[in-house]
């Protein structure tokens, strides 16, 4: 498919958070049987608890890292906390799910106050089992730098959804 029709590009996830990559592992994220499709919208009340994450691959000895970030914190028109780290799980064996991995940074419920935020899940393949240290704080996390620091290479999968205030009616106020 031509690059410019790829939802991750059009939604600027590739650009703001990631560099272009080739998908190679399946990544399915489900919040209470609501599956996350790129660009779909979920309410904060739907995403309070951590989702079920199922990954593909074939070799149980291969391990993956899952990162969940909000690149639009605190608001999309002024994202000076980009990216806000919501969840970090490592050592997920292929063909299993996030619940089989090591939760390095626990899941924090999305609670956007201003604007419509994107919440991005990124999956990386690890070279082997590795120790990953939690960053000192959640804001201003850089997925690109994190991947470089731990030699994770390019992402193998990514998916994102949109989320705004529970009672929001969309978009920028001022």
């Amino acid at each position, binding site marked *: 498919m031509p690059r410019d029709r790829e*939802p991750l590009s059009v939604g600027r996830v590739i650009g703001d958070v990631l560099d272009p990559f080739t998908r190679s592992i399946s990544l399915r994220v489900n919040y209470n049987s609501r599956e996350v*499709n*790129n*660009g779909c*919208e979920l309410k904060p009340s739907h995403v309070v608890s951590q989702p079920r994450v199922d990954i593909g691959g074939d070799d149980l000895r291969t391990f993956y890292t899952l990162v969940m970030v909000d690149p639009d914190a605190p608001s999309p028109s*002024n994202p000076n906390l980009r990216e806000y780290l919501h969840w970090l799980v490592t050592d997920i064996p292929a063909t299993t799910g996030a619940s089989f991995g090591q939760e390095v940074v626990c899941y924090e419920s999305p609670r956007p106050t201003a604007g419509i935020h994107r919440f991005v899940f990124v999956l990386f393949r690890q070279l082997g089992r590795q120790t990953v240290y939690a960053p000192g704080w959640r804001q201003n996390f850089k997925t690109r730098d994190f991947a470089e620091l731990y030699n994770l290479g390019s992402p193998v999968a990514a998916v994102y959804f949109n989320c705004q205030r529970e009672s929001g009616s969309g*978009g920028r106020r001022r």
Partner: protein
Amino acid sequence: MGSQGGSFEEENPESLIGQGSLFSLTLDEVQDQLGNLGKPLGSVNLDELLKSVDNVGAWSSPGLTLSSDLSKKTVEEVWRNIQQKKRRDADSQERNAPLGEMTLEDFLVKAGVVTEAAPPQQQESAQWMQFQHPSVQKPPYQNNMVAGFMQGHPVQQPLPAADAAYPDSQMNLSPSSLMGTSSDTQNPTRKRVAPGDVAEKTVERKQKRMIKNRESAARSRARRQAYTHELEIKVYHLEEENERLRRQKEAEVLPCAPPPEPKSQLRRTSSTPF
């Protein structure tokens, strides 16, 4: 204060006096003057450096304070810090001169050594390190002007509208303002409420708003398009799968063995003799 400049050859090396005279020397020259240090300038503690300079009597205002953590560092380390800061500050127009060529003044300012309120030009320089734009104090600037005082003093300009979306921690100084000239007397952000300014600000605000609006609209379009593409792709895949499954189902039916026989009917083949 006599004519100050880069040339100190005619002065008695033993008696460097005068405010700012030592400041304008490059660190190389300072090292020469302070020959009694006994070790290369790089490994000198900031504490020692200041003491030596003090001894030479170069400070006119001895009340400089040195924060405790700074004083322990060697010149070498502080220089490295400065270089790191420079690299981070992508907008900086300062030349990346090697340590020896930087003036003592620049070095001290950048090290954050200079903390006291007076002399004024030092304070302004120190404040340059924090990305604030204090209003420039013009008179002292010109009175104490030392030729070697090359501190690039930023003149605050109205932020270009496009940058309004981002916090002030980004340095958005236009290049011309950075290598501050001593004769710069225009300061547009002086607190003057002239009618021209007010109108200008309104226009500025309108522009900022328009740009923000545009960005928001672009994000909105991107959102919509991304979702539409995603759904189209999903639909395509689902249709394919559907087709495949249907074909598979039909394929299963034809070569299939005829439906299993109804359960075999019992037939009498012989009667048992009772």
